[in-house]
């Protein structure tokens, strides 16, 4: 089976976080755990003008991310128990909960802030692309739930053909680092020259 991946339309997303809540609900995740996270990225400023008006270059956009099921997964590379593994069947990066010791090394290694430690259940958790649903011919819960149809998933080659090959907007890392199986349609805000002065305004939420 082909490598599975995600598409995210940054021009459509309104940051409603329905994807996050649908995922949390589906997996009955404890409060601090989210397999998908929406980052609110904002920046710019308002400046007073001599005539009394105001000028602004402020911007805001959202970034919905689960796991990118990377071709060079940093989490898998460092995992001391081999619990974190890439399933050869579909390329989805999964956690074997019977092996995981909950050390949090994968959490430190992932540049996409994807895995988390669920201390209640004693292991790492992360987006596994709802592989059980895929096996039943369904789509991941987040993809089905998004009211703006900003998410899509499927074989990464198909997604690339359909949506292009952009894999990074600020503040994501250079894709050469882990080779993520993820494509994105950037919004105009995410391509502003001042975008790198922006910051994630909801760090407590993610």
């Amino acid at each position: 089976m082909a490598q599975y991946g995600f598409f995210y339309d940054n021009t459509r997303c309104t940051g409603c976080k329905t994807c996050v809540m649908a995922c949390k609900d589906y997996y009955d995740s404890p409060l601090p755990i989210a397999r998908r996270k929406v980052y609110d990225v904002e920046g710019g400023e308002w400046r007073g003008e001599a005539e009394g008006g105001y000028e602004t270059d402020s911007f805001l956009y959202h970034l919905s991310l689960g796991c990118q099921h990377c071709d060079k997964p940093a989490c898998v590379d460092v995992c001391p128990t081999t619990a974190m593994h890439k399933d050869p069947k579909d390329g989805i990066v999964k956690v074997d909960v019977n092996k995981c010791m909950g050390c949090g090394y994968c959490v430190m290694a992932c540049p996409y802030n994807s895995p988390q430690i669920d201390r209640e259940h004693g292991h790492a958790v992360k987006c596994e692309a709802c592989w059980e649903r895929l096996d039943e011919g369904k789509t991941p819960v987040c993809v089905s739930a998004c009211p703006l149809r900003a998410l899509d998933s499927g074989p990464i080659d198909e997604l690339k053909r359909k949506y292009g090959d952009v894999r990074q907007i600020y503040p994501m890392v250079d894709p050469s680092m882990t080779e993520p199986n993820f494509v994105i349609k950037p919004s105009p805000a995410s391509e502003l020259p001042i975008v790198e002065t922006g910051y994630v305004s909801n760090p407590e939420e993610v």
Partner: protein
Amino acid sequence: MDAVIKELPLALFTTLASVGIGAFVTMFVAIYVNKSMEASGVKQLDKLTAVPLAFCVLALICAFFHLASPMHAVNIVNTIGTSPMTNEIVAFCVFLVLAIVYWIVALTGGLSKHGPRVVFSGIVALAGLISCIMMGLAYALPAIPIWNSPWGTVQVLGAMLLGGTLLGGTILNMSVKETPLEGEADGRIRLLAMLGALVLVVGTAVLFGMGAGAKSAMINVAANTGTLIVPLILTIAFSIVAAITAFLGRGAKRTAWLACGTIVALIAIFLARGIFYGVQIGIGL
């Protein structure tokens, strides 16, 4: 700051382990230099070796508290040599086993001759040194550029030298009554304590500086730096005070000074490790 609280068991692990290991290194240096240690002193030293050993066992317990499923830790056998964390755990366990065997053999009189004692304590010290290096290297992750530098390892080695020398010095001074750490052995202990303080302070200050200059979309770097300033100042002050105690007093008073120095060094190292975890600033999200 959240990272510091989350990693508290690891901060305790690295603090206690580096100090415990350092004490074994100090004991090796003293045994190597001091060929004519009187038998009663050696016997007492062997008994007191339980103290650094207890530090190391406590460190291991702290490390286990960090794990969400400690019972699954046996699975690390699959990644020996490939995962830096496995290397860290295995190196520490090898050191600990060697240290326990050394202690038992020494207590049962198996190391009464100077030669075998030097060799065995040297092996334990070397295993400890390797363990400290692995402890530092385990954090060299590309996703966290500040950690992906030699400075974390430098900090651990500084902690090992400062805290370990003082703890080792304390038990040596309590053991070798007739020649309480005088001459060459004492000179080396002073030198090691000073060197340890210097390395710990430099390593911690560089980590702090890198944290202050970092760029991050996720963390408010200015606020984060602000919360780490007081721990940095205290680390520097406590490290200097701890190193000074290596120069104070004679006889029983000297033991008391060294013991106080060990406690001050433990605080300095714990704060320094807090700073290390406080500069966990990711490259991306």
